[in-house]
């Protein structure tokens, strides 16, 4: 297994700074803005963006994590019991401009599930999508509004996002699966 690091900690910090400004720019301010991250890396991304918006604009938009386990589209085809948590936010999404955050956009299926999960929580005015990395390979008509980096990849490759909160360091790289695991 070989890993090629594309973004180091400093590059990720710059990227998040740019994304936080873009979010406020597109929203024309911080009014009505709220951030929702797909558990669990998306939640961390959302919190980072929130902290940055707070630093630059002195306003901390409400932020929360959502679990998409119950909304996955492969529950019946795969016949498994999801390990999910109930979605409870300490704020309402009704009429808000929701920025849905995730680390990697690939098939778009988790985004579809997340949209369904958000709709169960209320009726936002708008849902926008922010991802650290768009690796291509979409299977759903989903288009991100804010992209950290476009990295077209093949199916044998995957994006390894490391975050301080989980792995103790920030980095983003491409991992190529070795020949042997491809056959499985």
């Amino acid at each position, binding site marked *: 297994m070989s890993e090629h690091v594309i973004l180091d900690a400093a590059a990720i910090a710059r990227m998040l700074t740019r994304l936080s400004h873009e979010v406020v720019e597109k929203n024309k301010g911080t009014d009505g803005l709220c951030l929702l991250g797909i558990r669990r890396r998306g939640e961390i991304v959302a919190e980072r963006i929130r902290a940055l918006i707070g630093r630059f604009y002195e306003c901390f938009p409400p932020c929360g994590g959502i679990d998409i386990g*119950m909304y996955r589209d492969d*529950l*019946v085809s795969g016949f498994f019991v*999801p390990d999910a948590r109930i979605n409870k936010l300490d704020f309402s999404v009704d009429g808000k401009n929701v920025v849905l955050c995730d680390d990697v956009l690939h098939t778009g299926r988790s985004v579809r599930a997340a949209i369904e999960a958000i709709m169960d929580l209320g009726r936002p005015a708008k849902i926008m999508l922010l991802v650290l990395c768009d690796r291509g390979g979409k299977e759903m008509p989903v288009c991100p509004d804010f992209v950290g980096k476009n990295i077209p990849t093949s199916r044998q490759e995957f994006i390894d996002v490391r975050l301080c909160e989980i792995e103790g360091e920030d980095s983003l790289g491409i991992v190529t699966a070795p020949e042997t695991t491809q056959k499985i």
Partner: protein
Amino acid sequence: MIGKDMLGLYDATAEDIMLILDTAVGMKKLLTQNLKKLPHLQGRTVTTLFYENSTRTRCSFELAAKYLGAGTVNITASSSSVQKGETLIDTGYTLDAMKNDVIVIRHPMGGAPHLLARNVKASVVNGGDGMNEHPTQALLDFYTMREKFGSLKGLKVAILGDIKHSRVAKSNLFGLTKLGAEVVMYSPATLMPQGIERLGAKVAKSREEALAGANVVMGLRIQLERMHGGLFPSLSEYAKYYGVDEEHLRLADKDCIVMHPGPVNRGVEFTSDVIDAENSKITEQVLNGVAVRMALLFLLVKNRQGGEKNE
């Protein structure tokens, strides 16, 4: 492997039981969070066919089926064609023709679910047959014990009460011996089935012997409806010599749990203090029952059809 039906634990393997319990862990996690709408049985029908009275088993199965997205139909013998003389097999053909996917049956005759299972395409689940077995109750008992103790291996389970008429006792015995627990039974000699030792149970000679060091104290209801006189003098005498109060419970292990499949006759098999004590798992058992039945319905549908409906 779990096949088409769940008829009893006599034929189940330890692996089957563990698979159901493991699946139930995920189900309970969802239930306790109030997340109760899984899609796995959507478009399927679960029918409860009850020839005997029931509150919790039927309600539990019905809720379990609903939480998995299935449609449910309830049939009670007293208000069905059984009253007009239809045989069990004919009722089975009728239910099959209506494309039922799972039939949960409770019947006063032991073996009735087996007979039905041989004649229908739907999965049959035994919801209690006469004095034979009540597998899902035993499974939820195992779940409750495992949740408390982590494993059933080496546990001493004392079962007190009407062993003879109890299908719960038998299913528990078959399962617990497979899972490595020790089963000690105690009841008036008239309510102890002959030869139960050959099935792996230890018969205690006194209440004290049965309770000594027990990790689980399970009471069973005196099933007056199945008794035709003369098995013991009176309920109050039974309570005095065979019932369990707080004082008796001190003989058991200090971390023991109290269980009862319900319905409880307060003051007969257990006193009210025992039933409402902190270590009583009687209401917890009811919640676990829904989780275990969800797991069972889930696995039956998953294993048997690989996605195909009864068509």
